[in-house]
């Protein structure tokens, strides 16, 4: 008798324990190791305090491994991730594939209209939001105010490439280890092609025309790549073909670069005394323009690291609760109260740029907002795809990287610009024909 009472008691206890355990949902979030994401990871206890029934489990991975990991998991329905950080390249493609859950339960207080329109549109498909922006970026010209002053130059608000070429020459002082211009050279669709795709648009050229025919042999690409190779050969740092964002960030932070055109998020790094030797000598201007009818005033770059829920997740409701918290106005306030306004994730909400505390703490705020607002990634009559510095089609990753290798070869001098563009055109035409975009 006693035995059965004990057993019953134990069973009851066990039942209580299981209910308690099952009432708590554990979310697994896959993310890249960017400082804004690490900050979010650090602030998660605040979220868990507000939502005791949700526990958050972070998986931080290197960007390429994360992409491979998440793609495999979604394609096979593995369900290992409940939330992941993806970019504006993936969102339209994955939403179309049915790989993402639409975010329709972010709550009444979310204020979706506060999201910067260009970003919101970049993350929506058929009017539904498929990912919530965590931080966003466009392209800026970063330059050294002290070196410009010494050379008697004034950076215009909207520089042209002609001016940039002149300035690069004047600022370069190779004996002192100062190079006039630093640009990305490392091959990759998200590395040198992000910059070159942007630069080609500044000369009026896209990746593909309205019939999906690759445009690498067009006038715009020729002008852009010739100028790029010319400037980098004469005034760039040595070994530029292996420099990506991080390498240039280091060079600029060490005071080796006169100018650097890259993602606007670089601004917060080079003005941080902990990470840069020139924190108070950096000026910001618009990305240069190549021709008079330069589209988007030169801002041909839009990227947003965003939080999305894979279709295979079984905890979508809890995941939306977390996303709503991490991309809310309250989260921005929370970061500001703990780490200061300069560390708030930029580029997602209009209200942030109306906040004088933020604009005072972040000297790059206006330039960033201006850049993001003027970048329009929507398809147009002569550009059938979504995106500016990339084309949001699945084939672009492979194609962009193959073309990027040609560009790196041209930069390092192992092939000519004409040859590299001809080769790129051939590679792209083959891929696009294979993909069924070009009909024979």
């Amino acid at each position: 008798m006693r035995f059965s009472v004990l057993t019953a008691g134990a069973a009851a206890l066990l039942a209580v324990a299981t209910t308690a355990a099952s009432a708590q949902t554990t979310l697994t979030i896959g993310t890249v190791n960017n400082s804004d994401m690490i900050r979010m990871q650090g602030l998660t206890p605040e979220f868990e305090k507000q939502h005791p029934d949700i526990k958050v489990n972070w998986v931080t991975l290197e960007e390429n491994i994360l992409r491979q990991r998440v793609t495999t998991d979604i394609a096979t329905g593995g369900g290992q991730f409940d939330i992941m950080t993806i970019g504006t390249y993936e969102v339209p493609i994955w939403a179309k594939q049915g790989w993402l859950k639409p975010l329709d339960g972010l709550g009444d207080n979310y204020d979706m209209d506060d999201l910067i329109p260009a970003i919101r549109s970049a993350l929506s498909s058929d009017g539904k939001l498929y990912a919530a922006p965590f931080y966003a970026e466009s392209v800026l010209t970063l330059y050294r105010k002290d070196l410009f002053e010494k050379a008697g130059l004034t950076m215009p608000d909207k520089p042209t490439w002609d001016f940039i070429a002149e300035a690069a020459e004047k600022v370069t002082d190779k004996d002192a280890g100062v190079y006039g211009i630093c640009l990305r050279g490392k091959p990759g669709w998200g590395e040198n092609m992000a910059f070159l795709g942007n630069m080609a648009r500044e000369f009026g050229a896209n990746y593909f025309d309205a019939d999906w025919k690759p445009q690498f042999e067009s006038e715009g690409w020729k002008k852009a790549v010739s100028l790029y190779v010319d400037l980098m050969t004469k005034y760039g740092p040595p070994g530029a073909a292996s420099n990506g964002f991080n390498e240039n960030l280091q060079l600029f932070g060490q005071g080796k670069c006169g100018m650097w055109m890259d993602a606007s998020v670089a601004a917060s790094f080079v003005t941080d005394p902990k990470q840069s030797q020139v924190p108070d000598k950096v000026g910001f201007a618009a990305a240069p323009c190549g021709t008079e009818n330069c589209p988007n005033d030169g801002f041909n770059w839009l990227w947003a690291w965003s939080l999305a829920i894979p279709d295979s997740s079984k905890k979508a409701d809890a995941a939306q609760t977390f996303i709503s918290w991490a991309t809310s106005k309250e989260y921005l306030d929370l970061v500001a109260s703990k780490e200061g306004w300069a560390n708030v994730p930029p580029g997602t909400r209009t209200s942030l740029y109306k906040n004088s505390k933020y604009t005072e703490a972040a000297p790059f705020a206006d330039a960033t907002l201006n850049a993001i607002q003027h970048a329009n990634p929507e398809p147009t009559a002569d550009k059938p795809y979504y995106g500016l510095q990339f084309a949001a089609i699945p084939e672009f990753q492979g194609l962009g990287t193959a073309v990027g290798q040609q560009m790196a070869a041209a930069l390092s001098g192992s092939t000519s610009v004409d040859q590299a563009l001809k080769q790129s055109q051939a590679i792209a035409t083959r891929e696009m024909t294979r993909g069924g975009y070009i009909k024979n």
Partner: protein
Amino acid sequence: MARKVTTGRKIGTTIFAWFVGLVIFFPILWTFLTSFKTELQAISIPPVFVGFDWTLENYRTIQTQSNYFHFMANSIYLSLGSTALGLIFAIPAAWAMAFSPTRRTKDVLLWMLSTKMLPAVGVLIPIYLLFVRFGLLDSRLGLIVVLFLINLPILVWMLYTYFKEIPGEILEAARMDGASLSKEITQVLAPMAVPGIASTVLLNVILSWNEAFWTLNLTTSNAAPLTAFIASFSSPQGNFYAKLSAASMLAIAPILIVGWFSQKQLVRGLTFGAVK
């Protein structure tokens, strides 16, 4: 006629050996030094060698950001588990091949090795689907099986070469004395093959410890070993070399220490059978 070894020659060889040793060791030394620098010092040009303010900041950051011991425990489980499982299969297989070979033994050995030639990514999706079906994703058991399978050919090959060195007559004598098969393997063969088995175990532990394709693709958090720990400190936007170096030092420390203490065994085992 033996060549006369002069003192000059000895000094020359010693200096050369030290030079080669330093060249090979330098990346680890550099990682070690970098792990004590700030991010700014880590990337400074010209590089600073020792004259910087040594800081433990990176190690502290790493510890607050992720739980090192969780990853290390997984690495230990995976490498020891897969090695133990591997020995259970590899010792009998190598025994059969070494002492009662058939006409096809060489072919079987080559075929086993050929499975190592397929790029791992080629079978990622099938394996992933199997893992989904059997609920093995992010589990230590699943990874132990995968690591065991990918290292099995090497285990069998290494043990086979060691066993070949042992004269079959000794085993025959044991059999004549009435030893059963299990006694023959455990009491006669194994003690004689200890150096070989030890170095096989060590090599297999190191291979499993360093395996970074399957361990990254089949785990998320519960079963993630140190490879995932290192991978989490590389950043697409921002400086990370100092933190990454600190993470790498922590990840290789256990295996480095084990390797240090057992290097004699390892070298002896690896060259065992190479020279008759």
